[in-house]
């Protein structure tokens, strides 16, 4: 099934996948940050496709990430809500969309954002991961109470 917004004259920008996860409706320009948040690095075994600035009827421009042979859990994808709350997740099995869901902002995020406070205990060699409470006005460090109110992506680990 072809999606109109993905079709250019020459065909699909990014090929359909047989099995895996498609993250659609990512805010334009945030695809690389989405990949970073999901912890998908250059050493990943799965085939990863990224399309940025794709035309979208609803959003004007959007990004898309496709990950083959891996179904992302709800907990994993909810982290994306921090930078792209409109993103939708499609779980693909045998070329069919088996599950489709939005992302929900989690109440706490662990190990994703680095505390900007240089004096925070989480920025040391202690055996802990950074931990932030998600509030309407921003992210609050669980350890030192530092509040990140803007530019969250620049603090992603």
């Amino acid at each position, binding site marked *: 099934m072809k999606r109109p917004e993905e079709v250019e004259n020459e065909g699909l920008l990014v090929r359909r996948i047989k099995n895996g996860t498609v993250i659609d409706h990512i805010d334009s320009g945030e695809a690389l940050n989405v990949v970073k948040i999901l912890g998908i690095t250059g050493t990943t075994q799965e085939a990863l496709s990224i399309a940025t600035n794709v035309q979208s009827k609803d959003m004007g421009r959007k990004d898309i990430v496709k990950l083959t042979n891996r179904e992302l859990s709800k907990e994993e994808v909810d982290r994306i809500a921090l930078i792209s709350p409109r993103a939708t997740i499609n779980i693909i099995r045998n070329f069919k969309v088996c599950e489709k869901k939005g992302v929900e902002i989690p109440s706490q995020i662990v190990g994703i954002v680095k505390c900007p406070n240089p004096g925070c*205990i989480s920025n040391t*060699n*202690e*055996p802990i991961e950074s931990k932030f409470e998600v509030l309407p006005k921003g992210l609050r460090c*669980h350890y030192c109470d530092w509040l990140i109110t803007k530019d969250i992506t620049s603090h992603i680990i």
Partner: protein
Amino acid sequence: MATQHIISIGDFDRNEIDRMLDHARQIDSKKYDKNALYGKILAVLFFEPSTRTRMSFESAIARLGGTSISVGSVEACSMAKGETLADTVRVVSGYADAIVIRHPREGAARLAAEFATVPVINAGDGAGQHPSQTLLDLYTIRQSMPIDGIDIALVGDLRYGRTAHSLASALSLYGARLHTVSPRGLELPGTLAADLRDKGLEIVEHDDISDVINIVDVLYLTRIQRERFPDSASYFNVASSYKITPELLAGAKKHLIVLHPLPRVDEIDPRVDDSPHARYFEQSKNGVPVRMAMLMKVMQ
């Protein structure tokens, strides 16, 4: 029952704070069991210098029949060998029934509470929180007046001063009006001020102590640290403009009280010590009953 810790004044609601202050008053009037913590051991884990906080915690446990142990200087402990705080508190949990910790990094006490198997009390973490100081500050105010609705001026280093941060946070529970007077660059951090305003605390900024001296009920001074300034001249210039003198207090309300977490350097003229406004030595002394109440809360 889950282990009780005292990490941040923000973890307590108004009723809990009032109950601890009531208990401290009861202890202050000698109505307490002198063997309430008999046989209990308090580990005093201080990674920063301290006189008042450390000695008053040691005094508090002794007055309740318990004992304290410590590592001495930071250089003498295993942290100097590179041990993590997480490991240190796990080990110390095996030696004591509670840990009181002071550490130069913000959030250290909360981390300690995650790894310790005994109660942890925060005795100051970097520029963060200092709940026992806040409780004794509130206790001292309450000895002179009800806390509700007071006008209080915080003066000095409000950026790095943890006692000011902690106290301001607690005052938001009492409908107080906060007046801030601080040198440029040492103002209350913007995010903290916004947070306090969200909690309903009214904050009014002033440039000069003389602007607030005749309107406040409490004058809370903090030490301006010399190392925050590029040179001695600029430090002395600022420090002298934040000094409390008997002449300045001449225009104050009759019931105004002057508080300071101590040590003071140049912030208060020694001639103020004999004034009826001076409460800072009383405040320091109040550290013992307040910390006794805290120890009983987590160790009993």
